[in-house]
Every structure is written in C-alpha cells, then in structure tokens.
C-alpha cells in the first residue's frame, strides 16, 4: 500500500493498493486455452516458408502476417507519393493514409489527440527524443532521473547521457531478485528531486510487468514526469496512456507485427510543444529564412525528412490485425497459456535455471534461463540445429545481468507470441534435452 505518511497527495483519501510486491502471492487462475490447435500460424508467410522452425524470439522482433506485407506493397503500388508536400491526389492520398494511422494509434493507446503521436524509427529513437529534447528543459544540476536496473539499454543509455550533460543524477530502482519492485525501494528512491521516472512496462529479460500506474502517481506528486518504454507491453496487452498516467509512451511497430523501422512516441501535447526538435531539415518547418526557421507544429516538428510512409501504412495494418483480427483478449489468453505450459515444462528440467520469478504469471511472454555449465551461445547454436530460434546474450540489459550476477553476463531467452503453439514449446524442450546430452553424454 502507498505509505500516506510519506506521500501527500489529493488521492490519498482512498489510496489504491500499490501491489508492488504482492504478485508473488498465490491466487492464480490457470489458463484453459487450447494451445494445440493454432488458427494463426497459417496467416504468417514466414511460417509457410519455414514450417520446421519453432520461433521463440518474438520479444526481439515479431513475425508479420500476410496482411502487413500486403499493405507495405499496396502503398507503393497504389498510393506512392511523398506525403505532406505534394499537391496532386496521389500525395494527398499518401498524406491521408498516414494521418489515418496516426489517429488509429491515438485511439489504440487512449491519446487525447492524433497530433500527440510522433513517428520515429523505433523505441530507441523515441526514448532518445524524450531524453535529448524534453529532459534538458526540466533537468537542473542535482535533480534526479530514476530508472530501474532492468531497463533495456534503450531506456538507460539516453538517460546516462542527459544526466552527464545536465548534472542530474541517475538513480536506479532495484527490484527483488525475481523482479518485483517493492514499496520500500520505490519510496526510498522517488522523491522531491525526481524530475523524470523512466520505466519499461514489461522487462525484456525478466518478463515482469512493472507497476507503472502507481509509479506515475508517485512521481507526479513530486512534480516529476513519467516516461514509459512500451516496447514489450503494447504487443501483448492493451495500453491506455491516460489510465497509466504516462507523460510519454514509446513503442516499436516491429514487435507488434508491423514492419521494422517504425517507432512511435506519444507525449502530452503541452510537453511536445515546449520541446525543441532533435532533427531538423525537410518537412518539419513552417517557414525558413537565410538565418532562421520557424518549426512546423507537433508532430511534424519532430518528423524531419521523408518518413517511411509505406512502413507507417503497414503499421496501421499490423495494429488493425493485432487488435481487431486477433484481439488483445485472445492474445493474452493464448500467451498466458503458452507461458504456463512452457514454465511448467522448464521447471521439470533440473539442469535449467530460471532467471527471475518462478511463477508463470509473472512472465509476460518472456522467460529467461540458463542451462547449467553450458554457455548460452552454445545453447542457442545447438537449438538452432533443431530449428528452435531463441535469443542468447545480454539482451541489451548488461547492468541487469551484472546486478543479478548472471555468469558470463549472458543468458538464454524464450519469448512467445499468440502465433506459437504447444508443438513449438515441445520442440524447444526437446532441444534443451539435446543441448544437455550434447555436453553430458
């Protein structure tokens, strides 16, 4: 529960449970979805091309359904023209197409207006935009930026940089070894000096969901801002930026069935308005003189140069597929069932060490582990021989692996999406037996 002695706020009269460390408590419903049948795989051309593989690396990048590939092609085939500037109907159509996707994303994440949605290349660029353009407008020497030790480098290095430049201090929240942020830790670290709290909604290594909403409430009491890295959450759970209390929210299309090279930064309009552009040049100005330029309004101000319009159009198709064809309810039910089965099978292998929580429902599509005495790169290479695609390495989270004391600063990671099925998991488990027998006779 929020400690009302420490946090004076207008909503304190009826504080919501903070649930920072309650998720290890039992009371779990077991998923009942049938993961043996798979209505989705057939919609993904890559799986038709490679029927032999078990793709368990969707946290790195998802596969794309045919409708997304078609959309990318349709753009070039039917409406290709440079958006924004052209005065002929093709260009107007391309401009409209992008505007529609902007509105679609605003509706999806609960933004109050489409113009708050800025297109970037990826989550990294979105977070860099916040750190490089927004942060210097609020940070003074001695101020604090708070992040968690489980952040992806994308939500870590930009803050290191801006702290160095502004004289602010980078402060880390350390969860329990299984990834739960405790109330004590949060209250000890977030305070009047906290100007920015930047947190991944779901960890790409531990799979744990962070209590973003409560963190937001807390940082707002102190007049700070909440930046949410949604790269691992938006593809798997509904997001409402207003409900989360976010000031900025970043995600990538390519983890959400969309094309690579499209990222989104949503921000509150007044904050975006006050920020200088990070990149300057074409398509981001109202007027230019020899010595000066007037920026275009948000979001064009942040979208210098010709955008990947086909990619944005295909992102629209991807999100439409995700939300309307499959639906978050199905995605969540199926992914929970897959993780439940995967964790259950993994826990039976005495040569496998799970990294993070041993409870399946603390893993949002992501399970990291190591095989005793075998380097993760060897594990991944041998699994590859069996057609099982997993990630091995530091997962762009070196400070986390250092803090966890993971040997070699590397681990294996299996991550699922709704298009996986029981056969994929079985193949994965068989692959692990193969890895073990390769090294241990």
């Amino acid at each position, binding site marked *: 529960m929020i400690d009302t002695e420490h946090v004076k706020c207008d909503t304190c009269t009826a504080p919501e449970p903070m649930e920072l460390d309650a998720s290890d408590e039992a009371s779990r419903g077991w998923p009942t979805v049938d993961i043996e049948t798979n209505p989705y795989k057939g919609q993904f051309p890559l799986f038709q091309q490679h029927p032999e593989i078990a793709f368990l690396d969707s946290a790195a990048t998802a596969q794309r359904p045919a409708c997304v590939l078609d959309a990318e092609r349709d753009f070039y085939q039917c409406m290709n023209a440079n958006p924004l500037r052209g005065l002929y109907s093709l260009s107007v159509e391309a401009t409209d197409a992008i505007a529609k996707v902007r509105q679609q994303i605003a509706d999806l994440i609960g933004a109050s207006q489409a113009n708050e949605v800025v297109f970037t290349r990826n989550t990294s660029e979105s977070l860099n935009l916040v750190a490089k353009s927004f942060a210097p407008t609020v940070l003074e020497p001695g101020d604090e930026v708070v992040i968690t030790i489980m952040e992806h480098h994308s939500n870590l290095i930009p803050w290191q940089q801006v702290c160095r430049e502004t004289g602010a201090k980078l402060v880390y929240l350390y969860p329990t070894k299984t990834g739960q942020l405790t109330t004590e830790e949060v209250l000890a670290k977030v305070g009047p000096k906290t100007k920015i709290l930047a947190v991944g909604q779901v960890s790409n290594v531990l799979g744990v969901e962070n209590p973003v909403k409560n963190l937001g409430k807390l940082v707002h009491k102190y007049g700070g801002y909440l930046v949410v890295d949604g790269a691992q959450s938006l593809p798997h759970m509904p997001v409402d930026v207003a409900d989360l209390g976010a000031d900025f929210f970043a995600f990538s299309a390519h983890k959400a069935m969309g094309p690579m090279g499209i990222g989104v930064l949503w921000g509150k309009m007044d904050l975006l308005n006050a920020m200088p552009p990070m990149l300057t040049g074409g398509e981001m100005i109202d007027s230019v003189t020899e010595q000066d330029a007037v920026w275009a309004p948000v979001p064009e101000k942040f979208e210098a140069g010709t955008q990947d319009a086909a990619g944005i159009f295909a992102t629209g198709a991807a999100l439409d597929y995700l939300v309307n064809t499959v639906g978050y309810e199905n995605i969540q039910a199926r992914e929970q069932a897959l993780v439940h089965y995967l964790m259950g099978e993994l826990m039976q292998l005495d040569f496998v060490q799970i990294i993070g929580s041993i409870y399946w429902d603390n893993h949002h599509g992501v399970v990291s582990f190591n095989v005793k005495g075998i*380097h993760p*790169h060897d594990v991944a290479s041998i699994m590859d*021989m069996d057609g099982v695609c997993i990630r091995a390495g530091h997962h762009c989270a070196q400070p986390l692996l250092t803090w966890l004391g993971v040997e070699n600063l590397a681990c294996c990671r299996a991550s699922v999406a709704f298009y996986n099925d029981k056969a994929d998991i079985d193949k994965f488990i068989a692959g692990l037996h193969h890895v073990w027998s390769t*090294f241990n006779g």
Partner: protein
Amino acid sequence: MGNLYTSTTFMEHNSHPDYKYEMDAPTHEHDGINPSCGDELTLQLRVENNVIEEASFTGHGCAISQASADIMADLITGETVEEARRLAELFLAMIRGEQLSEEDLEDLDEAAQLQDISHMPARVKCAELAWRTLDGMLTGQNNQ
C-alpha cells in the same frame, strides 16, 4: 557448424582441455576478451630460442571459444614464433570466410574443422578469441 557439437574430438577439447592451466614461468602473457559474449581468456607462452616450448590458457567462455583455444595451444606447441604467427593469420583468414588452399588447411590440422563458423557471424568472435590474442601478443612482440 552443427557438426562441431557432434564431433567427439571437438567437444573433448571443451570438456577436457589439455592446455587449460596456469603456467609456472611464462615468458609471454596476453589477455583477450569478447565484451559482447563475456568470454575472457589469458594466453600464456614459454618461448625459448624462438620456439614455443609451452602454451596454455585460462579463462571462461562458450564451448567454441574454449575448444578453439585448446586446439590452438596444441597446434602451436613446438612451433617457431614465425610459424605460430603464420598459423594464426591463416586461421583468422579462414574464420572470416577466405578460401584457404588444401595445404594451408592441412597445416591448421584440427583447427580447420572450425571453418564452418565463418557462416555464423555471431560465433566468429568466439572461435577467433584465442587466435586474436595470440596474434596480438606476437605482433606486439615484434614491434618491441
């Protein structure tokens, strides 16, 4: 590269390396690391009259890096410094995808079975760690 993991001799170099120990009186010592993998290796040589009388390594890493180091230590023991440099250069060329002559491949002996690694960019660094360390050590020596 799959056949590496199924090769008993190759896997033996990983599980029971003959040359993985700390040497008593090395004349040369050099560290090598792969920051992206966390592999760390210290290579030690005892060179007398321009001949590598003894080679050993310590450290940790994946099977590919460990077996490759053991194979290398075996190969260069008893060779002149110049020959060891030549072998290291051959190996590094092979692992980066250059086509070697039959003769050169024969000179690399057991190390030649790592040839397939060149098709796995992510594992090239693992395979070449010991050899890069050797190359750096001997090149450094020549510069002195």
